Every structure is written in structure tokens, then in C-alpha cells.
């Protein structure tokens, strides 16, 4: 079982694929998401988002604000600007 992750910005889809773990920083603090997480909608603050792909590689992105939504093993991260 894996998570279907999409990291999108207004101008492009930055990352999409299968992952086993996603971590991001919301206004409430750091948050890690594994499979079968309860539906969640969070507001992100500036900080790092890291995605551990199902092939074992970890990718880090710096995002400036944005949103994180989780439902049915589908994670989407919306942000205005991304740098890796």
C-alpha cells in the first residue's frame, strides 16, 4: 500500500508518484503522513516538504506556504513556489 502524492504549483506539477511517507510543516507543527492516514486538510508554513518515494529515495522541497490535503491515500500538496 502506498500513497499517491502530487506536489503542484500554479505553473507546473512538480512531483507526482507513489510514496510511502510524506512530511510537511503545518501551522500547528511538523506532520508526518503514512498510508491510511485520516482525511486531513492543513495549512502549511514556509519550510521543507520531504517525500519518501516507494523506491526508497527521499526528495526534499522548500515550499513557501500552501496546503496539504490527505484523503484515501491520496496526498496533494499545493504551494505557490517550490525549490528543491
Amino acid at each position, binding site marked *: 500500500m502506498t500513497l499517491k502524492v502530487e506536489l503542484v504549483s500554479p505553473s507546473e506539477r512538480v512531483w507526482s508518484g507513489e510514496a510511502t511517507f510524506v512530511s510537511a510543516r503545518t501551522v500547528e507543527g511538523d506532520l508526518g503522513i503514512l498510508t491510511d492516514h485520516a482525511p486531513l486538510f492543513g495549512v502549511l508554513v514556509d519550510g521543507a516538504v520531504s517525500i519518501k518515494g516507494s523506491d526508497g529515495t527521499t526528495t526534499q522541497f522548500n515550499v513557501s506556504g500552501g*496546503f496539504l490535503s490527505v484523503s484515501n491515500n491520496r496526498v496533494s500538496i499545493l504551494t505557490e513556489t517550490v525549490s528543491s
Partner: protein
Amino acid sequence: MGAQLRIYRRRMRSVKATKKITKAMELISASRIVKAQQRVTASTPYANELTRAVSAVATYSSTNHPLTTESERPIRAAVLIISADRGMAGAYSNNAIKEGEQLAALLKARGLEVKSYLVGRKAVNYYRFRNREIAGSWTGFSDNPTYEHAKEVADSLIKAFIADAQVELSGVDEIHIVFTEFKSMLTQNAMAKRMLPLEVVESDAPVPTGLLPMYEFEPNAGVVLDALLPRYIEARVFNAMLQSAASEHAARRRAMKSATDNADELIKSLTRLANAARQAEITQEISEIVGGADALASASAGSE
């Protein structure tokens, strides 16, 4: 060379020069449409995700957010018109402006005061020429808008919306947007849509949702909506700008193509006329020479 022939040649030269220009513009626009289209496609996932999120939050939270509730007694409405900076695009800008006029008439019939926000030099000139009041205008990026531009426009719209229209003169109760939808290379439609207050998901293509899940909100639904709605408006404005840019290029390509075709036609008929003029000149010269020779011959024959 006769005078008539010279005039025809001069006109042909000028038409040929014009044709070169229109041909070049046609090719440039054709190459830019593809790029503009790609940008529209690239922005779609973000817009879709946001729409999904907004509808989820709006459906499952009972928060009464100012951005989602309709005013009981609306006074003013803002209309954002997206047009082009440059001409040579056929009726593209005019169509958008006309659509805006119709919308304004409709709003006025409802008893609302209309405030105009304009993007693109063409719309600004149109309003300035008629001495109409402009609440805000942005120019210089109509053929290649970036997210920053959209943000700038959206920010001032949201600011006007948040200001209480009952008290402040700058406040508005509704925000409408007029843009040109890019359907295909051949079809572009000027259309008007209401952005705020939100209509319950009014996108034509149903966002692939299925049942919306019961979200937990972090930190809470109110804060999430606060953060989400401005982004949503920005994304809508950005999408409208991108579509308009693609439409502008398509309209320009079409206009320039017909200009090139017309120039071709004109050159063809001018060539015919020039040929006829040249031939007439030659015929006249021959008959003059023959006539002159005849006259000489009969004159010398008479003297003998």
C-alpha cells in the same frame, strides 16, 4: 515608364512589404499559441486541486466566511475585464469589452453600481476614451502573464471585497470576471463568470472527486478557509489570464493569416493591372511609331 505603371508598381511594393510583416506576425503567434496552451495545461492540476479543496471545506464546515456568504443588500459589484495590450488580433479585445458591457448592463439593471478593473491596454484605452472611471488597471503582460501578475490583480480585488461595501466606497459585494475562454485553435469565447461570492462549484468539467471525505482541519476550518480562498481567487484569475493569452495569440494568428491572404489577392490583381498598363503603353507606342512613319511616308510621297 508610364505614370500609370509606376503607380501600380509602387502600390505592389508597399503591399508586399505589408505582407512580409503580417506573415511574420502570423508565424510568431502560431508558435506562441502552443506555448500558451501548454501553460494553461500546466496550471490545471493546481486549479483542480484547489477547487476540490475549496468545495470540500465549504461543504463540510459550517463556518460563515465573508468570502462565501452573499450580501443581503448588494450595492456594488467589481467587474474584471481581461483584454489585450496590442491590437492586430481581430475582434479579440472588442469581444471581451463588449461582454463586459453586457454584464455591466445586467448588473446595473439589478440596481448595482459597477466598478471596473481592467487588464490590458486595449480595455484601458476604451474606458479612458469614454471618460469612464477605472477602479484599477494593469497593463504590459497580457500575452505572457505570470502568477505574480495574477496575484497582484487578485489581491486588490480581494481587498475591495473584504472592505465593507455598506460603509466604504471602495468596497464591493460581488466580483465578476470577463475573459476569453480558449476552447480550441479555432474557437475562443468571451465569457463572464462570477468569482465571489462563491457559487457552489461551477466549473464545467466535473472535478474528479467522487465523495468528498470528512476532513480534519488543521488548525480549524475557519483558518483554512481564510488561507484557501485568496489562493483560490488567485488561481482563478491566473487561469483566466492564461486562457485569455492563448486566445489572444490564436485571434492574432487568424487575423494575420487573413491579412496575408488579402495581401496576396491584392498583389495578384495589381500585377494584372500593371501588366495591362504596360501592354497598353507598348501598344500606344507602336501605333504612334507606325502613325509617325505613315505620316512621313505620305509627306515625302506628296513632295515628289
